[in-house]
């Protein structure tokens, strides 16, 4: 089973134009009249979503996912990639908790401690991360060696007040990467007793404000949103697809909640006509998402509304 070859095919099919850009970049950069011979910096983004307390692989019981996943295997993969790549960032898009008896017994401790061992750089909050209540969230997230990023929950008057940050800027070899988190509407989804006075703020408005701040004030070269909104809905419910189309300044949305298995990222044009990548890799740690970026010094030549995506 050659997963990477099949992914490459999917990728080329969906993003034929984008996929060959790396090879033509020097030619194009010549048009901007600068950057020739300048240093290229690479950055690898690794990501998971909806791992749902699946620390062990699925049991070998003949079911669809038998033998897949497992945090100790994920550790090996991540360690190998860190050995090969100078600049790696590892993120999770929420629903770390709930789904195996590990959570029922330990309330999330081994999940968080395992993420520490794997060297996660940040995570956001999924609806099931409320399942042990806000006090448990404080206890377990307090054990994390990585920040919990969430920009659209106001935890004032709750135990979580001051325990999360809206965003964080990472510096990798001169590249400034801004990362922020977005959570789903708790009402109707999470028992009230589990989220109490947590206020849900409009994700589109918050995302626009936060991404603009990261781009303009924090001078970020690349902006990533960790989202637990869900990939896409049939109605007008805000999703990653809606978010991408209605915002500016986001380059990549790492999504979760809907357990969507995307073969390759989906590109949606934002309000400036720029194609935002949305990626989501299923659930339960069955997959690890990997996105390899390269950066060149200097500003890009900018032309709005001219993006070409091959479908």
């Amino acid at each position, binding site marked *: 089973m050659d*997963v990477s070859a099949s992914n490459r095919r999917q990728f080329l099919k969906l993003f034929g134009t984008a996929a060959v850009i790396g090879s033509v970049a020097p030619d194009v950069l010549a048009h901007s009249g600068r950057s020739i011979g300048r240093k290229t910096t690479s950055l690898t983004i690794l990501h998971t979503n909806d791992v749902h307390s699946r620390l062990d692989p699925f049991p070998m019981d003949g079911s669809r996912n038998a033998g897949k996943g497992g945090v100790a*295997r994920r550790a090996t*993969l991540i360690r190998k990639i860190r050995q090969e790549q100078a600049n790696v960032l590892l993120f999770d898009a929420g629903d770390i908790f709930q789904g195996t008896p590990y959570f029922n017994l330990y309330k999330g401790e081994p999940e968080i401690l395992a993420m520490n061992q794997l060297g996660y750089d940040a995570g956001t909050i999924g609806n099931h991360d409320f399942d042990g209540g806000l006090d448990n969230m404080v206890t377990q997230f307090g054990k994390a060696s990585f920040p919990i990023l969430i920009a659209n929950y106001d935890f004032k008057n709750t135990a979580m007040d001051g325990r999360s940050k809206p965003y964080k800027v990472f510096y990798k070899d001169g590249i400034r990467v801004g990362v922020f988190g977005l959570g789903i509407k708790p009402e109707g989804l999470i*028992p009230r007793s589990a989220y109490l006075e947590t206020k849900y703020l409009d994700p589109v408005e918050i995302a626009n404000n936060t991404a603009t701040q990261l781009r303009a004030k924090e001078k970020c070269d690349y902006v990533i949103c960790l989202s637990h909104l869900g990939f896409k809905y049939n109605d007008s419910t805000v999703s990653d697809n809606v978010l991408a189309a209605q915002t500016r300044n986001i380059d990549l949305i790492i999504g979760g909640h809907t357990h969507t298995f995307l073969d390759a990222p989906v590109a949606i044009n934002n309000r400036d006509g720029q194609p935002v990548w949305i990626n989501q890799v299923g659930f339960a740690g069955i997959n690890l998402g990997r996105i390899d970026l*390269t950066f060149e010094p200097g500003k890009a030549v900018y*032309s709005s509304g001219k993006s070409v995506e091959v479908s």
Partner: protein
Amino acid sequence: MKKSLLYLALIGLLACNPGGYHLASRKANRIGVDSLSASTDSSVARFLQPYREKLDKTMNEVLAQSTGPIDKGLPDAPLNDILTDAMLKQATQRYGKPIDCSHLNYGGIRTNLPKGNITIGSIFEVMPFDNQLVVLTVTGDMLQKMLNHFVQGSGLVVGGIRAKIHDKQVQAVTFTNGRTLQPNENYTVLMSDYVANGGDDAGFLKNPVKREDLNYLVRDVLIDYFRQQGKSGQPINPTSDGRISIE
């Protein structure tokens, strides 16, 4: 023409950037995590081991004994009765008020309970889903509709109610607490949030008179109940009281 398309595509990919760098390329790969793609990291495995060992011990905790297998079945069976009665008993304590009846979706009862030792692991096998208990207050009309819906669908599993099925319609409903089913009176029904949210095609339940979430997992209810049964020292004798019968 092809080259200019590529050129436009690249420009489109590059965000307007006041910083020192711009994106020059991007590619993606989805890596399957399995025994073929990666071996087990020994340090993480060592870290997990004590958690797993204690977990296994927890799963093996014997809650109660049964003199025979406790099986599910339709129109009525020992497992149907004991699960819905357990829900009613435990949730009433949590709710603090009497609840008229309880309901489980038949498909949500995943397997039978064994003869002999009933462990926490056995309960996880019967109820692997993390469904929470909900108390819906509904009119008699809606309750009648709900009873018919499940008789005609996946199967009716209830506690606190006796009824007869005639021609796929539920009739002669009586409550254990002595109430009778009146179209315009209100009744409290204990069920999983899965059904209350419209699961099993029960979308009509989304507009009850009132909905109260107990934040109490159905599985935890059952674990608490069977543990109490075990403490009584009496083994469970699987029986069905014939609460649902077909005429």
